[in-house]
């Protein structure tokens, strides 16, 4: 390797360091605003940049089969999450069985994600995945070959291998536990059509079915397939076919009621009407041809684009591309890979999304809960879909939302509203904020949309300066206490700083986390104090001197649940150059501690940290195998689940 080759290798390596483009976009707006924390609320009321919400379309086709079920067009989105925040990898698909997700990550292998943790099952670069009805086997495709993985025996077997004549085998799907469907493609012959075959796994007998791609078995002797950008329903008994819609990548729900697919439509730019965009979105349709509905939103790739394109230029892609929709077992949750189109310097350009569907409309309170959830996890797309006039940018980075509480709801004249508190905290700094807001809402097709948000009051506890904690309410500032006012009996010897704060509104007390530094006489530890704002008194909650028998304990973050009984503490311990990270739930009354890493089985946890409180559920993140994954833990039920 010479110097030039080294330069070139470093350039390639640089491309492997992903830049968080969402942060870049959001932080830019936040910094340019004069008062970032207030501005975005205010902007909401005035700025309307992107066309709001979902477009609902109904289509009446004479039903061939009548079933007692909810029509696709009547389903509402009850929740939506970009739940796997990918640190260093792009997911290529997903299959779900009984709450376990199987996710092939590009160039990294196949992973499982469930309440027991995150585990690597196989090495490889799998492009597609399908799970059998009994949940025991996976069909995988990679590089023109199809493989069968037995989850119980942990054994992989190649069903079809790309041949010397370069025939590619792709898009496998289960017909039943003993039969699969798959596609043969001859990339050398551009005129040759892709063909769908059936394979009997017991006899290895192959049967040609028809031309097409992406077969998905419907049951009752029928399948759905893609041919020439159309989604077709094919009766296997008589070979008759009927078009469901335009689109590609169909996937039939496990209850054989719906098909999900990706459809491309042309849209006109709002700012520059001469520009057109090719927008991909995920749709669902009834398999009895009754109705269909769009379930994702897309926006122009560059929504700042104002320059008119010349007529020769092709239409611009939407910001997102959607690939490989798939369903959970119950047929009420849709998974899809959402890809970022266009110039993207980051190596991470895909996200695994889930969309929950329900026949019931969201209530006003549920709408506000979902909106706050979307803000908290920085899911701008979902947050905007719940707003009537969404602003261009919504979320920032630090301080960040750590919880919320719905206080009440009611009507002001004809206008419905929901009152809610949002709690904010700051990583590695003594800061806590409670923002009380009124969310004005109005009915919509999905339930409600947020018209406007008014802040009623902002209470901020801030210990950034000179070990003094200030209380700032609606702009008025007062000093609560300085570190030297802490009674000597509660203030340990040595170098001490106020590290984190959390506010208990009902008790009018402030939780003060003191960091005691390591010195010649003692190891580092954390002391938890309670400060009563009313009578200005301090009391001791407890000390954290060891974690897993390891001394030198530090604290990076604290938050408290909406009922103000359980603290979440992001702690670390170590020495001699190594640091181990822990997230702990600390019950204030009993001083009982739950270490969340103990809830996982055989899972490599490189790092863990608090995310937020969704009512009694504590959402937290772990880093494992280079991936960032979110989990939900309910302390009362002692229940850990993937989030």
């Amino acid at each position, binding site marked *: *390797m*010479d*110097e030039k*080759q*080294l*330069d070139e*290798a*470093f*350039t*390639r*390596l*640089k491309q*492997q*360091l*992903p*830049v*968080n483009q969402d*942060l*870049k976009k959001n*932080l*830019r707006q936040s*910094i340019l605003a004069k008062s970032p924390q207030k501005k975005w609320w205010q902007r909401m009321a005035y700025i309307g940049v992107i066309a709001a919400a979902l477009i609902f379309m109904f289509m009446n086709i004479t039903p061939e089969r009548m079933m007692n079920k909810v029509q696709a067009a009547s389903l509402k989105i009850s929740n939506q999450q970009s739940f796997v925040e990918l*640190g*260093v990898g792009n997911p290529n698909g997903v299959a779900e069985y009984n709450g376990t997700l199987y996710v092939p990550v590009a*160039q*990294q292998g196949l992973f499982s994600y469930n309440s027991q943790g995150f585990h690597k099952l196989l*090495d490889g670069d799998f492009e597609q995945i399908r799970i059998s009805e009994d949940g025991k086997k996976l069909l995988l495709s990679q590089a023109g070959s199809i493989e069968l993985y037995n989850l119980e025996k942990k054994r992989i077997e190649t069903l079809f291998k790309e041949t010397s004549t370069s025939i590619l085998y792709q898009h496998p799907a289960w017909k039943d536990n003993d039969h699969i469907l798959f596609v043969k493609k001859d990339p050398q012959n551009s005129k040759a059509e892709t063909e769908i075959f059936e394979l009997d796994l017991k006899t290895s007998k192959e049967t040609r079915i028809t031309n097409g791609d992406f077969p998905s078995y419907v049951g009752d002797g029928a399948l759905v397939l893609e041919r020439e950008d159309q989604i077709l329903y094919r009766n296997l008994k008589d070979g008759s076919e009927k078009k469901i819609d335009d689109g590609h990548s169909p996937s039939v729900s496990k209850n054989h009621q719906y098909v999900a697919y990706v459809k491309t439509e042309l849209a006109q730019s709002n700012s520059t009407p001469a520009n057109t965009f090719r927008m991909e979105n995920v749709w669902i349709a009834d398999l009895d041809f009754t109705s269909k509905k769009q379930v994702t939103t897309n926006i122009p790739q560059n929504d700042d684009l104002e320059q008119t394109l010349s007529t020769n230029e092709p239409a611009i892609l939407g910001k997102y591309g959607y690939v490989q929709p798939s369903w959970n077992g119950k047929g009420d949750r849709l998974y899809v890979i959402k890809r970022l189109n266009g110039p993207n*310097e980051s190596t991470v350009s895909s996200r695994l999304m889930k969309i929950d569907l329900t026949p019931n409309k969201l209530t006003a309170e549920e709408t506000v809960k979902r909106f706050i959830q979307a803000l908290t996890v920085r899911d701008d797309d979902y947050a905007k879909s719940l707003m009537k006039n969404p602003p261009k940018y919504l979320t*920032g*980075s*630090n301080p960040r939302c750590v919880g919320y509480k719905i206080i009440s709801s009611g009507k002001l004249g004809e206008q419905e509203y929901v009152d809610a508190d949002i709690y904010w905290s700051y*990583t*590695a700094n003594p800061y806590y904020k409670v923002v009380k807001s009124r969310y004005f809402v109005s009915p919509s097709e999905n339930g409600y949309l947020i018209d406007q948000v008014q802040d009623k009051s902002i209470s901020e506890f801030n210990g950034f300066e000179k070990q003094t904690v200030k209380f700032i309410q609606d702009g008025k500032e007062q000093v609560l206490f300085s570190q030297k006012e802490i009674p000597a009996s509660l203030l340990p010897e040595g*170098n001490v700083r106020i590290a984190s704060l959390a506010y208990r509104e009902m008790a009018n007390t402030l939780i003060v986390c003191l*960091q005691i*530094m*390591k*010195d010649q006489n003692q190891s*580092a530890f954390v002391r938890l104090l309670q400060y009563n704002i009313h009578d200005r008194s301090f009391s001791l909650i407890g000390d954290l001197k060891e974690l897993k028998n390891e001394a*030198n*304990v*530090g604290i990076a973050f604290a938050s408290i649940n909406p009922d103000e009984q359980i603290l979440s503490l992001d702690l*670390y*311990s*170590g*020495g001699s*150059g190594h*640091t181990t990270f822990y997230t702990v739930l600390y019950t204030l009354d009993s001083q009982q501690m739950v270490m969340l890493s103990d809830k996982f089985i055989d899972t490599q946890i490189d*790092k863990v*940290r608090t995310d937020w409180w969704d009512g009694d559920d504590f959402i937290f*993140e772990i*880093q494992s*195998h*280079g991936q*960032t994954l979110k989990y939900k833990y309910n302390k009362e039920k002692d229940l850990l689940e993937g989030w």
Partner: protein
Amino acid sequence: MIYDQYFDDVYRYVLLKVGNKWDTDDIVSDIFRKVFEKIHTTREIENVKAWLMIIARHTVIDHYRKRREVTLGDDVERYTYPVLFEDRLEKVDDLVCLKKSIQRLEKEELEIMNLHYFCEMKYKEIGDVLGKTESAIKMKSSRLIKKITIFVRQCLEESENG
């Protein structure tokens, strides 16, 4: 605009130094808040990129300093660059060998490598950031390149020999 022009460089610089996305997001947010507070009060900025990277470097050090007195000891720099790249059981090629070779560099060499190759800074600018002369940085870079070239070659030879 300074933000758009340098955000990616700053982000990669911090990511490489702290090794995880969470801390990187927080630190980068703090860096740009500081930058926009200071830019109006700083009289003359001779080289914007060097000035920005000095702020970035100090913010990362502040981040580690918070942990220093707890678990890390005095040498804050020693704890930067924790795990540079995941070992992903990849087929051994020049890039895999480069990743392995980087792990063998000294902290100061890593810093120069980060600023030069990932932030695309000139030797003079790197000197401004690290408080060293251009010629000193040139000399250290030349040694670094030789060293890493040897490491990569060794790694490729070992893989060829099984």
